[in-house]
């Protein structure tokens, strides 16, 4: 279900690693109801790559797939979004921003291509020991800055919309929250330019890229741009990444995932499917009970895996259960 919802591995495995040893193909099929109609979704993986189909036909692209299948998962490794390396935080931001605005995918792809092209230009020039054609550098910088400014703008716009929703959820989950929770975007553009809008972001990013020219030529790759940006979560003015306890980090990561669901429902009217991998063991009874009541209020379809039914803190009639034994599912 995680693969259907995200087209990625639950364990961050590469595509071929998800295929059973000795098999040529791995496939997952699911049926969902969207707009009152049943839709069949299928993902198949081969060594060549991944294919996805809706009602037996290939959709035009990823936006069509993700417009139909919306899923949010909370897994233990999500804690790393708060205290781990920046690429995990960028991934959360980009995925969540895309859920709200499908055009973000095209912008992010444009930025990635411009970045790869500029990196190739810098790398070749360094390897061959020849100066870079200034006009070539100028045009790739231009593409990088235009697309990059859009990426930064959409990311910060997402955080602006997301912050109040996060605060609402976080307050409920952390009974003894100390101080206001805030997101701070950190990177290639200063706070003032971020607040001023797209033209200011573009101008600030342009200045930053121009200033990095000598360093980039020396190192042979791009050092300025949103591909190296980060964001941090502060509670009561302190960055959670450095000062948060394990419990605070866990509550923050869970609040981010629930917040993603709440915001998606407010914007599109449809609540994504929520996948919880053994979360109950991670939370204390109070937080766990609050989480369950939040999920019931959201009227989301939720799938939880747990090794201890008591962890659920739900009335027996509030859920259906299945047993998983040696990879086989059977009704409880």
């Amino acid at each position, binding site marked *: 279900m995680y693969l259907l919802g995200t087209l990625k591995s639950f364990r961050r495995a590469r595509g071929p690693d998800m295929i059973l040893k000795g098999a040529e193909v791995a496939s997952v099929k699911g049926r969902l109801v969207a707009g009152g109609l049943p839709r069949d979704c299928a993902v198949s993986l081969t060594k060549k790559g991944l294919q996805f189909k809706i009602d037996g036909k290939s959709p*035009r*692209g990823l*936006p069509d797939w993700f417009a139909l299948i919306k899923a949010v998962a909370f897994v233990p490794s999500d804690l790393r979004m708060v205290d781990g390396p920046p690429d995990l935080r960028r991934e959360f931001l980009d995925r969540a921003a895309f859920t709200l605005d*499908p*055009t973000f995918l*095209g*912008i992010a792809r*444009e930025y990635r*291509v*411009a970045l*790869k*092209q*500029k990196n*190739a*230009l810098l790398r*070749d020039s360094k390897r061959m020991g020849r100066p870079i*054609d200034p*006009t*070539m550098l*100028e*045009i*790739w910088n*231009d*593409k990088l800055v235009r*697309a990059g400014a859009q990426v930064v703008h959409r990311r910060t716009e997402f955080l602006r919309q997301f912050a109040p929703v996060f605060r609402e959820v976080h307050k409920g989950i952390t009974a003894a929250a100390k101080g206001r929770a805030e997101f701070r975007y950190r990177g290639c553009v200063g706070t003032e330019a971020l607040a001023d809008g797209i033209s200011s972001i573009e101008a600030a990013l342009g200045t930053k890229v121009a200033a990095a020219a000598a360093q980039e030529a020396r190192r042979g790759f791009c050092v300025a741009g949103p591909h190296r940006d980060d964001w941090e979560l502060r509670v009561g003015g302190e960055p959670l990444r450095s000062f948060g306890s394990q419990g605070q980090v866990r509550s923050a990561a869970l609040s981010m995932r629930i917040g993603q669901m709440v915001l998606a429902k407010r914007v599109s009217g449809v609540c994504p499917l929520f996948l919880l991998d053994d979360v109950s063991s991670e939370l204390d009874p109070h937080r766990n009970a609050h989480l369950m009541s939040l999920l019931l209020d959201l009227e989301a379809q939720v799938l939880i895996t747990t090794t201890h039914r008591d962890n659920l803190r739900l009335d027996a009639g509030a859920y259906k259960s299945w047993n998983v034994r040696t990879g086989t599912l059977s009704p409880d």
Partner: protein
Amino acid sequence: MSDSAPDPLEALVHHLSRLPGIGSKTATRLAYHIVRTDGLAGDLSDSLAAVREGVGRCSICFNVASSDPCPICADPKRGDDIVCVVERTPDLQAIDRAGAFRGRFHVLEGTLSPLDGIGPDDLRIKELIARVAGGLDEVILATNPTVEGDATSLYLARLLKPLGVKVTRIARGVSVGAELEYTDASTISRALQERREI
């Protein structure tokens, strides 16, 4: 190791599978079809020989043609003051088929792409500059609306504008006859950004 010639059918499958979009299965199917169909192998080999002997690049615009200059460059009824720059010959043919442009063309033979090791010297840019220097009123940049196509147009614009020629870029947005309902989000977003007053 044996130096004997390869099996002709296997060689045909091998050569067909070098074509874009043709995998080994399709190549095998095509090869058997060629062998089974009366006269097809002969017709194909005659056509291939004729293409090898008689088709090349136009020395003015680099269109693929069987004459030099190509029919478009040789046509006296076309305007000499405006040139439309395209990536490849199929793009030239698409614009020419539309019938809305009666000027000349210039085929770049690709786009700038450092990832593929393609720089300005690998494209027909010097030749374009020489044509502009010979006296042109306008250059229309009709490279594809991809990151590489846009970057190539941007590069050409920087080079050509100081020469005093008018440089324009083809518009982009919703296709004529298309329904908005089926248009992708990026195209709609770009069409809205580049809207114009009527």
